[in-house]
Structure formats: C-alpha cells, structure tokens
C-alpha cells in the first residue's frame, strides 16, 4: 500500500514526539536517545510503503517499547485503509463477475491487515 509523503512526515514527527515524551518522563536516557535516533535515521529512509513502515515500527517497538502505542495506531490506520481498498477492489471484481478472484482478494486483505 502506498505511503504518502505527508503521512510519512506525520509518522516521523510522532516518532520524535515519542522520544521527547519518553525523555521528559525519564523512560529513556540521553544515551538511549542517541541510539534510537541513529536507528530511526538509518532505517526510516528505506521505508517506501505502509508495509515497510509497519515492519519498521514493529522492529522499533521490539527494541524500545515506548514506540508500541505508535505501532498500534499505525497498524489500525493501515488496517482501515487496507480494508477500504480491499472492499473497493472486491466490489469492483464482483461487479466484473470475477467472484472467485473477489473472494481470494477479500481473504488476502484480511490476512495482510492482521497485526
């Protein structure tokens, strides 16, 4: 699924805000901040679509749990968008009479959006 530049920037902003929040609440140290920053800067530039974004956030959350809420939020958005797109596609296939393809599409969409 496509990831717009605007949404990517929004996620990037949220990532920084999570770090600020965690520092403010002493959940991470200044040293942690530097490590996390280096990780984000290195990995985030390779993120091209939503799947890669979720994969990145999942890895980030596994290393530093402070990012888990962001993963949950983003996954929810991706799921909703994927579902919307899947519904559109399924409807379109159904209208074209491609029932089997429509069913497969619906199944795939459900599998892909599970976090």
């Amino acid at each position, binding site marked *: 699924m496509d990831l717009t530049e605007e949404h990517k*920037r929004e996620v*990037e*902003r949220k*990532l*920084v*805000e999570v*770090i*600020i*929040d965690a*520092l*403010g*609440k*002493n*959940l*991470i*140290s*200044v040293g942690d*901040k*530097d490590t996390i*920053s*280096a990780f*984000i*800067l290195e990995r*985030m530039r390779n993120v091209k679509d939503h799947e890669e974004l979720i994969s990145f956030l999942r890895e980030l*959350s596994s290393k530093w*749990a*402070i990012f*888990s*809420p962001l993963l*949950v939020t983003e996954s929810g958005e991706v799921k909703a968008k994927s579902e919307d797109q899947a519904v559109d596609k399924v409807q379109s296939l159904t209208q074209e009479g491609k029932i089997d393809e429509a069913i497969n599409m619906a199944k795939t969409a459900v599998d892909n959006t599970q976090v």
Partner: protein
Amino acid sequence: MADATQTPEVIARSFVPEGAAIPQTPENFQNQDAANILRQKLEAAGEDPLAALKPVEGRKPLDVDLDTQLKRRFGTEGTPLSTEEQTRLDSAKTLGDTAKALAENGFESLTDTQKDALIDSLITDVLDKRPAFDDLDPDEKDAIAIDMLQNPAYEKKVGEILAGRLKPEEVIEVSQKLAEAQGGFDEAAQALGNKQREAHTALVDRFAVEGQLDEFKPATAAGTKGAKLDELETLRVDEPVNRADIDNGINDLKSRGKTDTDINTMKTQVAEKIARGEPITDPDEMMVSDVLDIQKDIDRIGELEIEHADLETERQRLNQRLRDLPNEITELRNTRDEKETQLVDARNQKMLQEQGVVEGMKRATSDAANEFLADEIQKRAAEYQNQLKEMLDQTKDADEQRLIKGMQSRWDRAEIKGDRIRFTIKKGAVNTDMRTLLVGDGPEAILKEMLMKDVTDPQEKARIEERIKTDKDFVKKYADKIASSVLTKKIQSGRLYEGEIRVMVDRDWGESAINQAIANDAKKRELIEKVYGSDSGSPSYVDRIKRKAGSNWLKFLMLFLVGGVAAGAITTKFVAQEGGR
C-alpha cells in the same frame, strides 16, 4: 481499565497518574533538558521532522589529551606539586573537562552544575561587558546564553580555542627554569652554610689557641704566669748546669775508654731498654741513662719554643681568617639572596603560568562567545556591504551611485587581513548620525550632506537641492536606507535604549527604518515570523509587534533588535513566555 491488546509496557505506564512525581536525579534533569532541546529542534525542523534527530554536524572528539597537556603545563614530572599547585591543576582540569565536553558532545550532555557555571560565565564575561545587552533582564540574558551554548558553530569555536591552548608542541619552560633556580639556590645556600661553619670552627680554634698561648704568658696583675713559660724559664736557668753535667758524664765514659761512636751506640741501646722497661744495671749504661735524662730537659726547651712559635703563627693565621671570613660570608649571602630572588621569580612565573592555564580553561568558553559574536557582527557587516554592492550594480543614477558609495564607507572601515577583508564599525560616525536622526534634522539631513560632499559647483548644488525637494521617492528610498543602516550599526556597535527606539518610532521615518533593519536581517525576520506568524495583513514588523505583544511591545521590539546581535539568540520558547507577561 487497560485494554487487553496493549503491550505490557503501555499497560504499566497506564498506572502512572498524570503529573506523578518522579524522583529528580541529575540524570533526570539532563533528560528534561534533552527533551526540551529536542522539542525546539523539532519545531525548527519544519518539513523534515527527522532532522531533529540528526547529530550536530562537525561534532567529533577533540584531538586534545587534556590530562597530559595540563600536567605538562604544571610540571608534574619533577618535584611533587604543592597543595596550591594541585588545587590549581584540579581547577584547570574541571574547567577544561567542561569546555571539552561542550565541544565534543554539546551543551545537553553537560551536568546541571556545568551548565549553570557556563551560563554564569557567558553572562558575566560576555553579555554584561557588551552595552548592547545592558537593558536585558537576567532571564533574557539566560536565554541568550543558553541559545549560544547550544549553537554548533559556537561549540566548534570552543574546541578550536581549547586545542589552541593545549598544543602538545608548545615548549613549557617554567618548570625547567624553576628546577634550575632551585638548584642554583640550593648550591648557594650550601656554600653559605659551609662558610658559616668554617667561621665557627675558626672561632673555636682561635679560642683554643688563645688558651694554649696562655700557658706561655708572663705573670700579670690579673693572672699567674703560664705553666709552660714557667717550665721554659726554669729549663733555661738549669741549662748551663745540665750541659756541664752531660759533658762530665761523657768525659767519664771517655775516660773509661769509650769512644764517641761507642757512646752514641750506647745512647741508642739504653733508650731502647728504657722504652722496653728493662732495668739499667751496668754503670756505664746508668751514666748514659743520666745523660739522656739531662738531654731531655735541654731538648724540652727547643720543643717549648717551637710550640710557642707555632701557636703564635696559628693565632695570626686564624686572626686573618676571622678578618676575611665575614666578607666571604657576606658575598656568599648576597649570592644566596640573589639566587633566592631568582627562585621566588621562577616560582611566581610558574604560579602565573598555572593561573594562566586555569584562566585559559575558564575563558575558553567566554572567549569563544566573544569571537562568535564578533564573527556574527562581521558576517552582517559583509552582508550589508554586499547589499550595497548589489544596489550599486542595479542603478545608473549618478546621485544614487554617489549615495551608495558614501554608505559603503560612512559607517564601516574596511581592513585587509590576509586574504580577507574585515569590517569594523566607525562608532563615532554612527553615534553622530544617530544624534542627527534622533534630535537633529533626520535622515534627509544626512542624505543631503552625503550628496553635497565635495560639491563646489553652484549649479550642481542647486540641482541637488531641487531633486531633494521634488523627487520624494528618491528621498524616501535613501532616507529609509540611511536610517535603517545607522540603526543597524548602532545596534551592532553599542548601547541602544528603549527611549531611543521610542523616539525613532515617533518620527515619520522611524518605523520604516526599523522595519527595514529587521527585513534586512534574515534571523530577526525568521524569529518574528516564528513567534507571530507570517502576517500578510500587516507587512510592518513594528505594527505586528505592537498589536500582538500588548503593552510591552517596545520591550519586545528592543529584544528583537538587540537579540539579533546574538544571532537570533532569543528562543521561541522564551519569547512566547515573554509574550504572556
């Protein structure tokens, strides 16, 4: 209740009430600072939020072995340091560590104590010494100092200054000179001690000789005759009799057939027997023994005379030494005093060097701040000159060209330093023109003076007068430029009072000049737009500040104008707080 789908960490965090007190440790304060700085960076990052996470460019470990270089300057390899020297070394180390940490890892990496010390130092040693910052409140100065301390260009400058002050190739001579001075003093003190001991010994010897000579003294009213003189006089009286007795004895022996050789041999043999304690029974030998005894008394006269003469000689020698020694001691004492002075000088030199090192470490940050501000002003002066050059390139109008060329050198003095041109502000000219603006005939008077300068032709003078009267656009354009230039230079070079701004705003040219001064300065402009937003409905910065900053607008205008000198040193947060006053 926590959602079952949330991670354990999120659930755990949900138990923490909002605003719950967290124990504050130095690390916690450091985290708060880092959070604040990161927030400011995020706000400044605009369309690239991740820029806030990027490490500061150019920040890298300094190639400075602080510990070794400081110890080298304190001469720790020689004699152990005194308590005072160790205290100075510790102080230099603490200050140097702070400056190094700032240069290598940034302000946010420092402890609260280090941060407070640096802020105080910048305020005391830099801001308080610049009239431009006189009217700022302590909080405002704090904000400017912190902003500068967080500036990467400033960090870099601190690193350069620190490295320059701790060069490994720098020859440190004071410790060596102190060691040499100490050696010279020790040697001189030793020589003086030896001479003083020699004088003491001579005095004791002289006293002893005097005692021995008393044995040869004739009787006086105060004392009896010396024993040895008495002995000598007795022996001398007895000598003729003794000699006759010896002659008689020898003659007796000869009469008994003994030759001189026999008698001499017997003398030796008898003397040996007596020495061995053997009894003398032979009559001839007994005669020889008597002769030997009597001879002893005669020999004793010579011995006593020699002893007396030797004692007199020794007394004279000692008397001479005792006369000479005080001079020798004085000379050695002078040498010792001279060496002591050299030692004290060397110690003072070392102390001064050590204090210089401590001061150098302490001032690394404030000197960097002064250089940073000087560079900033320099940059602005160069920008101003570039603007004038662009204006000059764009006009063919001779009057405009004349005015622009006049402005190029009216308030700035250009100096060629190496391959660079450095500009210094002509404070006298700026102050004179500022007076003309505030209490004189305003910028038009300066404009007219610049156009009329060196013009002698009456027709040309009349033409200029006419143009000033009729060409309002021309006059307004350059009057504004002149007023804003004078204002900018005044801000950069010295004191500016709220009252002066108030007077300026009241003049018909004033608001325009201030707006132009702000518009010409990207950092001021950026700062105002950041705080008050880009307000297309109100192109006048002064007007915008008046409307949005309320009754304190003049104070805020002042902050924006003066703060610009410190490279936009007033932070958004600070100004936002001030806006709420």
